[in-house]
Structure formats: structure tokens, C-alpha cells
């Protein structure tokens, strides 16, 4: 193993315990604020992992979106809600053990699959193909931008529409509107006339 591979392994060995500790902390902290901060640790370590895997665009996107927006939103929401510190019950019912069994079976399946794939892909034929791919990805971000506007134009524009609809749909249930009261009053006043001037449904 030469020096670069050694450094690579070292960095991975630093990041992976971070992810593990963070996710265990997210699940098992009693105080919810602590668990959201450890969720932030998990997201940061995952983005560092993306850096180590030579995907710089995705790493930056992960940092911006997950840590910078989603985690901040979660921390915000947790800190606003006034909830008492809840204690878990120590009883572990049958559901706990069923879920434990299912998850461990899934985990073992994934580990077996990865071992088999590792054996398959460490043959020399595929190594040369990967080296060819590495030369291609010198300008990762440029490549992504190019593909987004050429090959994947329709999903790209559709995703922007999706964001618009998601925004409208998220505001819609949270909006405060008083028009129910006004309509009822108007109805009582002008019962006979056909079209009563309906109060506006203001967008904001």
C-alpha cells in the first residue's frame, strides 16, 4: 500500500466512527436537542466521506442542504416546541426484538453482498475501466452542469416546478385565514341576493 492509499484509509477510519457515534447518539439521547446536534454530526461526517470519495459537488451540496438547511430547521423546530424531557420505558416488548432481528438480517445481507461485489470488482479488468473513468472526471462540477442542461433537462425543470408546488403546499395548511367567519356573516346578511361579494383569499 503506498502513501496515498494509506492516507485514504486513515481518513476513512476517522470519519466512519464519527458517523457511527453520531447515529447512535441521535437514537439514544434522551434530550431531543442533543440528538439533533448529533444528527448534524452524522451529516457532516457523511459529507466528509463524499470528499474522501472524490465527489466534491455532492459533498458541498450535502453540507449546504443537509447540515445548513435541514438540520438547522430541525434544531429550530425542536427548540421552539416546549416539550418535557420524556423518559423511555424500560420494557422491551416483542416489537423491539422483531425489529432488531429484521434489521440485523438486513445488515448481514448487505455485508454479504458487499463482500461478493468486492471480490468481483477487484479483478484486474474492472480496475482498468475505473482508471479510465477517473481521467474523465477532472471537472466534476462542470460535467454535472453540462449533463443537467443537456441530457437531464426535463427532470431538472420538473424539479424546479416540484419545488414551487411543494412550497405552495407547505404554506397552504400553515396559513392563517379568517375568511370562514366573514363568509358566514355575509351569508346571513345577503341571503336572498345571488352573488355575495366574497372576501378575498389572500395569498399571504
Amino acid at each position, binding site marked *: 500500500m503506498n502513501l496515498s492509499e494509506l492516507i485514504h484509509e486513515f481518513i476513512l477510519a476517522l470519519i466512519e466512527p464519527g458517523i457511527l457515534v453520531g447515529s447512535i447518539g441521535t437514537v439514544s439521547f434522551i434530550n431531543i436537542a442533543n440528538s439533533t446536534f448529533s444528527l448534524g454530526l452524522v451529516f457532516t461526517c457523511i459529507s466528509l466521506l463524499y470528499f474522501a470519495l472524490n465527489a466534491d459537488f455532492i459533498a458541498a451540496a450535502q453540507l449546504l442542504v443537509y447540515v445548513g438547511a435541514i438540520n438547522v430547521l430541525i434544531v429550530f423546530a425542536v427548540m421552539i416546541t416546549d416539550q418535557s424531557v420524556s423518559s423511555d420505558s424500560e420494557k422491551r416488548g416483542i416489537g423491539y426484538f422483531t425489529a432488531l432481528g429484521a434489521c440485523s438480517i438486513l445488515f448481514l445481507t448487505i455485508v454479504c453482498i458487499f463482500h461478493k461485489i468486492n471480490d468481483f470488482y477487484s479483478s484486474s479488468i474492472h480496475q482498468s475501466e475505473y482508471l479510465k473513468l477517473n481521467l474523465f472526471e477532472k471537472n466534476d462540477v462542470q460535467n454535472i452542469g453540462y449533463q443537467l442542461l443537456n441530457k437531464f433537462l426535463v427532470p431538472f425543470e420538473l424539479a424546479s*416546478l416540484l419545488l414551487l408546488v411543494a412550497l405552495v403546499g407547505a404554506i397552504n395548511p400553515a396559513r392563517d385565514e379568517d375568511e370562514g367567519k366573514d363568509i358566514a356573516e355575509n351569508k346571513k346578511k345577503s341571503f336572498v341576493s345571488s352573488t355575495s361579494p366574497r372576501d378575498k383569499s389572500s395569498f399571504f
Partner: protein
Amino acid sequence: MNDINSFLSRLNSIINFSTILPKIILIVGLITIVITDLVNKGKNANFLYKIFLISTLVSMGILFYQLISVIAFEDLYTNNTFNNLFRFFILICSFISVLLSVDYVLCSKISLVEFPLFKISAGLGGMILSCATNLITIYVSLEFLALSSCFLSGYTKRDIRSNEASMKFLLMSGASSSSLLNDFSLLYGFSDGQVQLDNIIDKILFSQYIPIICISAAFILAGTAFKLSLFPFHQWTPDVYEGSPTPVVAFFSVTSKVAALCLFTRLFRLIFPYLSNEWHIVVELLAISSMILGNLIVVTQRSFKRMLAYSSISQIGYVMIGILAADLENGYASMITYRFIYIFMNLGTFARITPFSLRTGSDNIKDYAGLYMKDPVLTFSLVLCLLSLGGIPPLSGFFGKLYLFWHGWKAGLYLSVTVALVTSVISIFYYLKIIKLMLTKTTNLVDTLKTYENQKSLVSSIISTKLKSSVEMAMILCALASTLSGLFMDPIIKITRNTFF
């Protein structure tokens, strides 16, 4: 010579561009609705709905015109008859369901603007899903459809049942699309980084990776069967149907099922041709169990919408027979014709339930007793649509089912067709039960029906008469279509025959 060349190239580019023109018109309609409401500050509700209807009609017209031409556009989607038919169906669904939702929205005093917005976006997502051949486009459009449907189902935010319905829908659609995404990542990995569906088949080495292909088939089944509400994935259907506002249920009971059918057929046809025996058996099993389950549980239902939910579960079972029975000379004709007829039957039934629930505020089947005396038009058209759903001879549902079962029998699916026949008889039983309840003249009316007349006059004084008749227009349209389509069966079959790929 140069002039002719440039003219031809310009014409070519216009024709090439026009394959996405229907969608662009829908997008323009969407943006117009938002901007119009922003400018008008909430007045002119009818205008918004007219924009929606006009844009839907225009894109339907263009799509109809394009049904003639077969031109491919880029790698993202192709323009064959299969895609066009499904897109056309989705547009029909959107159009009719908006007709019957105008009344409801105005009456229940919920905010006006976002309703056509979500409907357009769901229709748009469905349309792009129908003609997507790219894994990424499939996923984004599926999410678009699911998200818009979820917002629609939670639209009446003061109703607890609506909140519950949208919560369930959101969670379960998120779980199913994550399973679908898992499968897409498997397919992407094992075909050396190909995203186009055609290229994936070329690149996957089937001999070597059979267990992985089976796993990915299972994931795709889990992901798409949710939207179709096939047997083990049908649990969301009754609760969501009961909780959401009625015109919304009408809309996504047809639209999302049509789009999901298209997705299901395309994925299974293109990616797993080598595994046809295996996935045929699994889908047959799922179809049989959905038919049995849907038709047996529906007998005990007391709410009309839940009953329609279970009946739609069983109808999907019948349609699965059509998918399994596809062969070279007939394509997917049986499935598509049945789907077409089913759209009108289902929308017709919902078009009757909506004014009834507006006028009496109840959803119980028992409250429909003696409806014949109060409102004969509604009763008669509801009778027609229910009989068509059941499959009684002169109506079009019978012809659709006949063609479906005959096709299935010819393809050798003896068990499924037998089960389908038996369960059809059971379904006729409970539809007739409702019809009998409506048509018998009871001496002591139910309380809700006593106030029927009063409520009707209250409603008509608020809403202008033009809007009130839009529901009736939808009613009559659907009644006519579900009755008379049986006569036009042959041309419909001829159009849908050309859809094998």
C-alpha cells in the same frame, strides 16, 4: 435550395418541439393561475377554473392531433401510441374531475387558488410519468404526482380525517418511492451507469446477475404496487379515500392509477423480459388476492367512499389480468380499453356522490335510501354508473370486462379469469344492494334526506347557476360515456391495439 432546407429544418424543429407542447401548455396554465390570483386577490374564482379548463382542453386538442404522428424527441421520452393514450387519459381525468370539484370547493369555503394549482401539477406529473423512459425522469415525475396528490388530499385542513388521510398518504408514498429508488440504484449500478431504460436492458448481463435482477424486480413491485393499491400494499386506500375531500378522491382515484399503470407496464415490460414467467406468477397472485380481498371486504362497508376504495382495489386486480395477457398482435388493448371505460364509470360515480354529500353532509350508504323520490336524475345516473362498474350487459363496463376476460382466457390465465368472474358476481351483488336501497320507496325517510330539499336551495342561492351545472354536465357526460362506450368498443379496441413495445 437553401430556403427549402432552412424551412424544412425549422418545420422539423417545431414538430420536434411539439411533443412536449401539451405539457408546456399545462405549465403555462399553472403559472397563469398563480399570477392571476396574485393580481386579482381572490376574486373571480370562476376565472381561475376557466383557465384550468381551457389549458386542459388545448393540450388535449394538441395531443389528439399528435396521436397521428409518431416522432421521437431526444432520449428523455418517445412518442409512441402507448404514451399518447395514457397522456390523453390523464387529461380527460383532470378535465372531468375539475368540473365536479368547482362546486365543492366554493361550498366548503376553503381557499380557492391552490386547488387547480395542485390539480394541474398532479396532471402534469402524471403526463410526464406516462412518457418517461429515463430513470431520473420517472422518479422526479412520480414524486411530483405523489406530492401534489398528498397536498390535495390534505386540502380541507380543518377536517381531522383529511389531515389523517394526507399524513398516511405522505408516509406510505415516501416509503414506497424509497423502495423504488433503491431498485433504481441497483439497476443503475448493474448496468454500468446507464440511466436510459433501453440501455439498461442492453448492458445488464442477465446470466450473471439473476439474484440481483430478482431483488430489483421485487423492489419495483413494492414501489409501484403502492400507487396501484395491489394486495399487500392496499392498506392506505380506504383511509385516504374516506378522509380526503370527495372531488380529490375522484381525481386521484383515476389519475394516479392511470399513471402508475403506465409506469408498471413499462418497467416490467422493458426491464424484465427474461423473467416473464417469474413476475407473471407473482403479479397473478397479487391480482387474485386483490380481487378477492376487495370484493369481500366491500360487502361490510357503510361509507360510500370506502366502498368505492375497496371496489377500486378489486378493479385493479382485473386490470392486472390485462397486463399479463398482453401479446404481440393485441398489445395492451384489453387493459387500456378497460381503463378508459373505468375512468368514466368511476368519475361518474364520484360526480353523483359529490353533490349528494354537499347537500346532505353525509357519506353513509344508508342515507341514500329512497333517493329516487327526491332527486331522480341523480339516482338514475348513479344507477347507470354503478351497473356499469358491476358489468351488466348493455352498459360499457360489461364490454370492457368481457374483452379483458376473453383476452386473459386466450392467454392461458385460467385461474385468474375464473376468480375474476366469481368476484365480479360478488361485486354485482353489492352494487345492486345500493341500487335497491336507493330505488325503494320507504315511507319513513331518513333524517338526512328530509332536509335534502332545504339544503339544495341554500346551495343554489350562493353559487351562480353556471357553476352549479358544471357538476351536472360532468354527470351527464360520464353517464353517457359509460353507457354508450360499449357501442363504440370496436374502434376503441382498434386504436389501442397498436401498443406493444
